[in-house]
């Protein structure tokens, strides 16, 4: 448990391939921000980014964990997955670029807008990846 009362940590597991549960963690994070009385516009941007990142773990990786670090100044959400990784991050960031399988597209995901939308909505975004191992995406939102 966290000792610093000014900050809270949360963790959520994400299961690769399980689309019916995709969005669960995002909804939980949204609830937290509503309880904190964060501005609705900021909540909206956070949740949109969060949801896209969560779906990416479900769609492209095998398994992952979401680490949330919350205080009154900001929220940092780290999506760490075990999966194939991203060989060319710059290319992955391009609007419309997607390696999603046709199966994933049928589910209504895979339009290649996820990463660009995360970048657009987040106050800060960091992404790193090791091919064959996994990807870590971190977004930070200022809450004030």
């Amino acid at each position, binding site marked *: 448990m966290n000792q610093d009362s000014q900050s809270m940590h949360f963790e959520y597991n994400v299961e690769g391939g399980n689309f019916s549960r995709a969005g669960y963690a995002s909804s939980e994070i949204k609830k937290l921000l509503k309880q904190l*009385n964060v501005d609705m516009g900021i909540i909206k941007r956070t949740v949109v980014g969060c949801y896209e990142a969560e779906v990416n773990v479900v769609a492209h990786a095998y398994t992952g964990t979401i680490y949330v670090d919350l205080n009154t100044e900001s929220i940092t959400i780290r999506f760490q997955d075990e999966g194939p990784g991203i060989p060319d991050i710059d290319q992955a960031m391009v609007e419309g670029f997607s390696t999603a399988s046709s199966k994933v597209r049928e589910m209504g995901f895979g339009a290649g807008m996820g990463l660009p939308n995360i970048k657009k909505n987040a106050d800060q975004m960091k992404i790193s990846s090791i091919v064959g191992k996994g990807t870590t995406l971190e977004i930070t939102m200022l809450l004030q």
Partner: protein
Amino acid sequence: MAVKYFHHALKFRKEVCIGCSHCMNVCPTQAIRIQGGKAELTDNRCVDCGKCYRACPVGAIIVEQDDFSRIFEFEHRVALIPNVLMGQFPERVSINQIRSVLHELGFTHIFEVEHGTRILEGAMKEYMLRHGQRKPLISTFCPAIVRLIQVRFPGLTDNLILLKPPLDIAASYFRKKLLDEGAKNKEIGIFYITPCAAKIAAVKSPVGDDTSDINGVINMDFIFNKVYTSMKQGHTGKNACQLPSLFALQPEEMLWSLTEGESSRMPGRSLAIDEISNVIEFLEKMENEENTDIDFLELRACDQSCAGGILTSGNRFFTVERLRNQACEVKLETPENGVTDVTASMEVYRNFLMDNIRVKKVLPRSMEKLDEDMKQALLKMQMVRDIMESLPSVDCGLCGSPTCNALAQDIAQGRAEITHCIFIQKKYEQKDWLSSRESLEILKDIWGEEKFGSRKN
């Protein structure tokens, strides 16, 4: 003291309530707690959906209505009736019969609410063109949904279509028409026959609008019973002609208050969702997405929309079937002599109605926040989490809060104690922190003395 935002038509009669907690368990906004053996409502959380009313086994929850005799304070007494009233009765009861009973009860005019939908439909389409960037736009037809969005989805208040519902448009039109015919404003009494509590609450404290052309509200079940009694007495409705006849509603107008009544009339991609839990589930998901390509959302609190209103008496599925059949049977004809063509008459007032069709912005009233101040809210959040670690997560409701999480939040906000939890009581008794007498007293405080009295032994 918290500011009171809403008027509520649902009233809890303490003297009748047996504290069974059925209402608490069905409330979609967790607005109910049990205290002292009685249900207690948190006003600002309640959206007037009426789920509790349906769940109460002893009729302790009532829908407050105006005293019927109030209609006689006015010389011109208008009954504004929604079309679902017609769907309450078996086919052999004619519209004329219903009209004649209303006449006998003392009304001088009868006007269908849905006459307001034609003007509204045009205004909605125009609104959608102008506000197309705010997708999806959400109908404000159902007042329970408007309140739900205010308290639970405050980020979506900007998506609400800020136009009056058909009820208010019909009322404005009729008042104006009577005024133009020479009636004095204070002589006109417009009374709405309502299928639900949400509409009453909206009439008494309109969201986003502060005046109403409606003088009072009468519950639909009251009228239903009157019509039935009169039918039993062999009434045929022959003298209904004393009331001016109106040219019938068009099919799309008749169906407006049913599910898909609005969505089927709107351009682009529209969706209709009825029943409040379905609506909540949908909006939760929708909030997560950047862009939805849905243009219009029709959301209704009741299953089968207004056919399932809590003050309706008929089986909602039959009501829908009847109204759909009636709509199919409407002949598209020109009005006969002596029959008022409402559409034409309303057209005359189009400019007047359009000038008054907008309502003020609907404000968010979030009930999710643990505290206004973010620092305090964070501390309380921490507290909720700590408390949750010791609660059993079985949501038994014996603490008087609907779920363990609701209890944890109540405790963090100083409205409850951890010892309200029966699992905690057992643990504390084991450790000698609490005597069995003390824990019994706690349960009595929550559930009332009587539940522990001697019924059998």
